[in-house]
């Protein structure tokens, strides 16, 4: 650990490890595809270990950005290679690194079908598949760690490349209308994903350039450094014209809203998640999309606080629409994966609601929501993927009575579903409740409307469970269905355990996230609303510490 203090580039190494792993995996010869899987898995686990070191090294009480690295990159444009994490970034890096091993393990056989009959030196799908996953991981980690806007932008966009191939090249082959239609849908989904995100990204690029122009106008030299800009603003040396700030904010926000995705820019997600395999779908919604909401918190609020406040009403309305709209559409879906996709849209609505509620509960809740939604969706989606792989169909109507033949599968699916509907005791409840409380304390009406979302969540989850898992077993394909295998258990059980653990004891995470949220709150110069009748801390509050101390020594 002393190395880290001596300027050991921990973040770079954390990101570089999967990148190197990707290259190594891709370089393996065709015959070694088993080895490729293991290399990918081992690398992702090693990355997880590194990310835990990051988490451990991170001192919640310390400065805002820690483990910082800074090197000149493109001097002429003031672009620097600047990394650093606050609590939010550290937690999200950990989430990314945490999910990847599960995704890889769940996707163990997904590329096998594509393998050519005879080993071929050029066409090595397995190697490519896992290399693309690791590459995505590397880029996501850099995005979470980048404190230079341009550096962030580069990786924010570059992420699209591996994702495009993962969706279009390694998509789900289970399609009701046959292989040909599946291929068509797959490429449609991949192109749609790419175009949506590219449009968002290009608009953001304009804003990034705009940022350079205004910083060079006001600071003498253009810079993309988040820290520098924040400091300059605190000094009063950097003040944006209202209209320019709003335009730049919109440029950034648009890109993040596409990525997040926020209604009405959401339609790429159901296609992308529906047509890709379950592990890739998890990669999209649980990892890659988080960059969008994370960036709202870090860049939109951090760089353009005034404009963020200006845009809040509209964003809140869009978030509310996302919540209800996503949930209602999830109710109406006939395809398991699309249902989960729409549920995710609803959940992203909650995250954005929390971010823009501009209360500590809302933002802490939003950050936790990103993490917990990642874990819960991974649990639900991966188990759904196991289910689909058994039957070769994504349609809910093709199942029924699975609980009787595969109780463990049904059980984990149910827990994933319950997490999705935010059952107390499971992690997502905490984040959702925080978001709702945070929103309610500033915008009561929005809070109440969003609360309707939790009823709808129960509806779509339980409908799906009822239709797939319960009832009599009528289909021979279902009757012959095996329960979870060892590899699948190894994926599903730890995720479920994690959901329970974090639902009961989220304090380690809140301790890391809270200070970062305080910083963001001070960025936007907002304070939590005071209660109307603050209760003097009497009663159990006085009584507690002594009690607590006594309890500890027991």
């Amino acid at each position, binding site marked *: 650990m002393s190395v880290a203090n001596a300027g050991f580039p921990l973040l770079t190494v954390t990101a570089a490890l999967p990148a190197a792993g990707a290259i190594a995996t891709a370089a393996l010869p065709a015959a070694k595809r088993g080895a490729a899987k293991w290399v990918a898995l081992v690398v992702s686990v090693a990355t997880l270990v590194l990310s835990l070191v990051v988490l451990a090294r991170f001192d919640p009480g310390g400065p805002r950005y820690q483990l910082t690295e800074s090197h000149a990159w493109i001097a002429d444009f003031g672009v620097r290679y600047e990394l650093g994490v606050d609590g939010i970034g550290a937690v999200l890096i950990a989430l990314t690194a945490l999910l990847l091993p599960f995704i890889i393990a769940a996707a163990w056989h997904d590329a096998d079908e594509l393998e050519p009959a005879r080993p071929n030196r050029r066409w090595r799908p397995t190697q490519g598949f896992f290399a693309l996953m690791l590459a995505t991981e590397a880029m996501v980690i850099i995005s979470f760690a980048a404190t230079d806007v341009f550096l962030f932008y580069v990786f924010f966009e570059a992420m699209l490349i591996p994702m495009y191939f993962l969706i279009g090249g390694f998509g789900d082959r289970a399609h009701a209308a046959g292989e040909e239609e599946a291929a068509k849908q797959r490429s449609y989904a991949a192109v749609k994903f790419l175009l949506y995100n590219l449009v968002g990204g290009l608009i953001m690029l304009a804003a990034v350039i705009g940022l350079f122009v205004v910083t060079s106008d006001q600071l003498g030299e253009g810079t993309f450094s988040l820290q520098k800009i924040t400091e300059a603003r605190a000094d009063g040396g950097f003040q944006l014209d209202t209209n320019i700030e709003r335009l730049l904010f919109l440029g950034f926000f648009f890109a993040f809203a596409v990525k997040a995705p926020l209604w009405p820019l959401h339609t790429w997600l159901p296609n992308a998640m529906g047509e890709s395999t379950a592990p890739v779908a998890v990669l999209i919604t649980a990892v890659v999309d988080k960059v969008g909401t994370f960036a709202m918190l870090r860049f939109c609020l951090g760089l353009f606080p005034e404009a963020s406040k200006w845009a809040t009403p509209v964003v809140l309305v869009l978030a509310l629409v996302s919540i209800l709209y996503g949930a209602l559409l999830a109710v*109406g879906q006939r395809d398991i994966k699309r249902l989960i996709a729409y549920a995710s849209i609803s959940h992203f609505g909650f995250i954005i609601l929390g971010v823009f509620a501009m209360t500590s509960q809302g933002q802490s809740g939003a950050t936790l929501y990103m993490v917990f939604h990642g874990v819960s969706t991974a649990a639900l989606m991966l188990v759904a993927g196991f289910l689909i792989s058994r039957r070769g169909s994504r349609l809910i109507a093709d199942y029924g009575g699975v609980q009787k033949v595969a109780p463990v599968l049904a059980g984990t699916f149910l827990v994933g579903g319950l997490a999705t509907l935010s059952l107390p005791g499971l992690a997502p409840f905490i984040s959702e409740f925080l978001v709702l409380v945070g929103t309610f*304390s500033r915008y009561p009406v929005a809070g109440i409307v969003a609360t309707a979302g939790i009823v709808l969540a129960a509806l779509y989850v339980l409908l799906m469970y009822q239709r797939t898992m319960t009832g*009599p077993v009528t289909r021979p394909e279902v009757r012959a269905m095996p329960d979870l295998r060892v590899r699948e258990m190894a994926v599903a059980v730890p995720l479920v355990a994690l959901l329970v653990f974090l639902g*009961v004891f989220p304090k380690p995470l809140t301790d890391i996230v809270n200070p970062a949220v305080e910083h963001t709150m001070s960025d936007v110069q907002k304070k939590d609303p005071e209660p*109307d009748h603050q209760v003097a801390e009497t009663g*159990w509050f006085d009584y507690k510490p002594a*009690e*607590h101390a006594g309890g500890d020594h027991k």
Partner: protein
Amino acid sequence: MESLIGLLVGFPLLGAAVLLCGGAKLDRSGHWLGVLFSGASFVTGVVLFAGMLGRPTDERALHQHLFSWVPVESFQADVAFQLDQLAMTFVLLITGVGTLIHIYSVGYMEHDVGRRRFFGYLNLFLAAMLLLVLADNYLLLYVGWEGVGLASYLLIGFWQFKPSAAVAAKKAFLVNRVGDAGLAIAIFLMFTTFGTFTFAPVLENATDAGEGMLTAIGLMLLLAACGKSAQVPLQSWLGDAMEGPTPVSALIHAATMVTAGVYLITRSGAIFNGAPDAQTAVVVVGAVTLIFGAIVGCAKDDIKKALAGSTMSQIGYMVLAAGLGPIGYAFAIMHLVTHGFFKAGLFLGAGSVMHGMNDEVDMRKYGGLRKYMPVTFVTFGLGYLAIIGFPGLSGFFSKDQIIEAAFAKGGTQGLILGAVTLIGAAITAYYMTRVMLMTFFGEERWRGQENEPHPHESPKVMTVPMIVLAFGSVFAGGLFKAGESFVHWLEPVTQFEHGHSPFSAAVVTGMTVVALLIGVAGAWLQYGRRPVPSVAPRGSLLTRAARRDLLQDDFNHVALVKPGEYLTRGLVYADNKVVDGAVNGTAAAFGGLSGRTRRVQNGFVRSYAVSMFGGAAVLVAATLLMRAV
């Protein structure tokens, strides 16, 4: 002593974890393990109770802080327990009745392949329910609140292969979720008003908040209570919930979980005391449900659904009493406890009957069973006498108190409420007598059916809990009433005021007895003197409506389900066509536009020449303009 509180929840939680994750190894012994954990919790409860009795009244409450759960700035949620007299009452009821029902289930579920899972769920339920009543803040209560909802969901849908059970389970969860949303909003309101949602500070300072805010909080809490306690308008799930195994109906949907709403209202007494409008709402809900449930109970031929209607009605009594304020809280809880005994007893009796009748639930196919299952007959009969309020038995004392308190509300309101409770008592007597007569008396209508059942008494493991509960049904009321011991026991928590009834206690008791005699007589005239047709007659309009749960499901279907379906279908269509269509349309528009503009490049030199000359003309024009300017 405090540290034991955690064990109350811990035992059943551990039991649930062990049983659900234990795998097939525990299939043979799992049920006894479940009983063990439940019993351990009960024993802990008794020990704590003994300890509590040993302390002076104002030091009886205990508090245990386990750990800080969700700390975010001013939002400080802790996992902490508070064991006061109210909670203690519930703990004993839950663990006591719970343990009995565990034991009963050992026999009832003997041949079910999923027995281990069943006991796991039951343990999970106990843990959640204990968490609900032991929580020292509303958020933790919310956890228990939804936890029991989950357990209820799992247990109603325990026989998942029956589509009806799966649907009923989902329905129960969803309707409860609506109520849960109310509880969530109540917590938001508390947090924004008081900056905390821990019981003590909120309740102690409730009066600071002003009546408007308290009314809002109160109404939201009422919504939550309506969901959990199956009160109008969120009552529709309870009847369907009878799809679950009978012990579940007895424990969750009669004795404990459904009374959580009453607990919530009583616990939040300070809030309701400051909000008369909310109290009125509570009383109205209670009164309406009281009659509603009773009417439904009269029309059902399914023994469990008839009892479910009765449960709704009885909880209506409790809610009504809780809505009366300090004059009623103690009686609400008292009725809750006695109801817990006799209704659990009745359900277990019903289960025992079904057990001997090939799981037949239609009372029209029973008849004359008293000869075949005497123990069941006696215990069921005692429960019956208790619920109709036969003088001297539990139900008599508790119900009589509520009717008295209703009159004591004073004024026209008091008279109306008193009348409603009396009518309710009469109808209760009517439908319970009906159940009794149809099941245990009259012709043996089950003879001659295909697959003729062979009625027999249930095994000891089932009858013993029934006997214990029957004792409770008989004596609990008298015990509580003696020297007003129950009221005094709860007074530190719920406060107590003596109401001033316009009628003396004796008059009220007299009216009650008359009401019950009318009810019994009516039922005897209809079902005792005449043979009961084994196929239900068409019946009057009211009867038919009552058989359809007074059209509650039809109303929900028309008002919520259908519009919801149309909405989602419309949105799915709109998402494809409008939202996605807008984007695809934009793409197509660009495609079309470039297809058009492409034609400008037609390859003809002369066309290009035209544009060249046009350009030249524009340049000249521009030059001239610039000169002019």
